[in-house]
């Protein structure tokens, strides 16, 4: 967004520039402070409701109690975050790599895509909570089913986006490659792959957070450790403060993961997609 201010008739240019800078500084400060204010209002309202209606701590904790729990049980929370993080990250890597490989195969062999894409769509329509028990039966009670579920969740958006990104190539660029007698392999590495990167990253940003969801849901089905297990444990023992603290830890991890993918995107995709002219 560009700001512009017309210079009033009674001002010199330097005065006008000075006041323009002042206005812009204030606008920047506002942009940062207002969201913080929003969070503060939300926390205040939460605390007030819990206090006014005398909500018992096994139903809902006050924000202060949650903060205290975060500090007091920090070691427990972190110890349980580790397995969930490993599952989410492994699932993320596995699901996305497989999706990228299959998308590449689909683009090169249309028959493959026409044969198997409907099956993939069908598998994707099964809800995660329904897939989880099946995989637990298949893969046992260890980390494997959790990784598999996180991977399955990441797989679909990446496959769809990657296929689209590899295929949505500027037709004139394709003609150019033909005029230059480029081989299929060169078209893939010089054109399609780069073209797909913005599409790939929008899928990766989705799966950064959904892979964590997948791991947690999988842990609900059967696990003694991990964020999912801790959530179940805290709920059944009416430890609402621990439940809330666990949720906060999980969402902080998701956010961090998302941020990492976004930073990677900024590093790699430095151009603007051609349709953004």
């Amino acid at each position: 967004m560009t700001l512009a201010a017309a210079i009033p008739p009674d001002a010199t240019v330097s005065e006008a520039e000075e006041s323009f800078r002042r206005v812009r500084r204030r606008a920047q400060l506002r942009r940062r402070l207002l969201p913080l204010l929003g969070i503060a209002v939300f926390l205040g309202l939460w605390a007030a409701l819990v206090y006014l209606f005398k909500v018992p701590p096994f139903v809902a904790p006050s924000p202060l109690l949650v903060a205290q729990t975060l500090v007091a049980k920090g070691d427990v929370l972190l110890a349980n975050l580790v397995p969930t993080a490993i599952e989410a990250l492994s699932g993320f890597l596995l699901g996305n790599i497989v999706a990228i490989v299959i998308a590449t195969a689909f683009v090169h062999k249309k028959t493959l895509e026409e044969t198997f894409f409907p099956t993939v769509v069908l598998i994707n329509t099964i809800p995660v909570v329904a897939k989880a028990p099946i995989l637990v039966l298949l893969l046992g009670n260890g980390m494997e089913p959790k990784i598999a579920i996180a991977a399955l969740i990441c797989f679909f958006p990446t496959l769809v986006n990657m296929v689209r990104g590899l295929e949505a190539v500027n037709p004139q660029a394709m003609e150019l490659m033909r005029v230059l007698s480029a081989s299929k392999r060169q078209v893939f590495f010089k054109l399609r792959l780069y073209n797909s990167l913005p599409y790939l990253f929008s899928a990766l940003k989705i799966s950064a957070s959904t892979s964590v969801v997948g791991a947690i849901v999988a842990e609900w089905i059967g696990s003694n450790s991990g964020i999912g297990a801790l959530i179940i444990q805290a709920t059944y023992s009416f430890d609402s403060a621990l439940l809330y603290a666990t949720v906060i830890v999980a969402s902080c991890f998701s956010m961090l993961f998302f941020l990492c993918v976004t930073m990677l995107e900024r590093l790699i995709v430095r151009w603007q997609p051609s349709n953004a002219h």
Partner: protein
Amino acid sequence: MAALAMAEPRDADAPAPAASSAVGCRNLSVRFVTERRTVTALENVSFSVENGGFLSLLGPSGCGKSTLLRVVADLIAPSSGQMTVLGLSPQQARLQRALGFVFQDAALLPWRTALQNVELPLEVGGRPRLPAGMPTPRELLKLVGLEGWESSFPHELSGGMRQRVSIARALLGGPRLLLMDEPFGALDEITRDRLNEELRRIWRETGTTILFVTHSVYEALFLGEQVLVLAANPGRVAAQVDIDLPRDRTLAIRETPAFMRVATRLRAALGGTE
């Protein structure tokens, strides 16, 4: 274009080379099969361009002028008739890298800088080496007036500059034939005029043969040594007009009576094309 080009296998045998002509086209027809009907894009088209010539292809939209250019470039196979490019078949000419193609949208790869875009032809196909004595990518960018913009990305360049990059890319390796498909159609008139003048200069400096598709009478006339007027439905040749204007042209020539006279003739030829 909604039509589906049917790529037909064709023998690589070249017809007898006509040594003097850069492009020779005899009784060429192109038909497309679509869901609803069969469209005749070009019917019985014949023309030729001599080596070092500059032919403008002028016609209303739908007259098949872009299709004709794509037959020359071996992007579309003709349904019947003969096309000779530099004494070879279009396919052989393409494999020899004898052609450069400039598209309507510059078709630059957005993840490559201006210089890297110009270098692309050296990285694909048979990864040909730049013949000794040929201008380097840097020199070509200078030729099109983009010295100092080598490391800019396409989104940092204006429409006119992007088109200059794509002209530089098409000139890499010294093609003997440059095919241009309405390259300045999307630009503003001021930029377009300037690029028209520069294209004449580049043509004189490089000596390459140019086929230039446009639907602007003035552009066709200002640029071409000859103008091939095409009519639509089906695409066919309405007239081939020689332009006897001086080789050294500035935009001012467009106000001269001689220019106006030929423009009137071209418009009359176009008049019967709707």
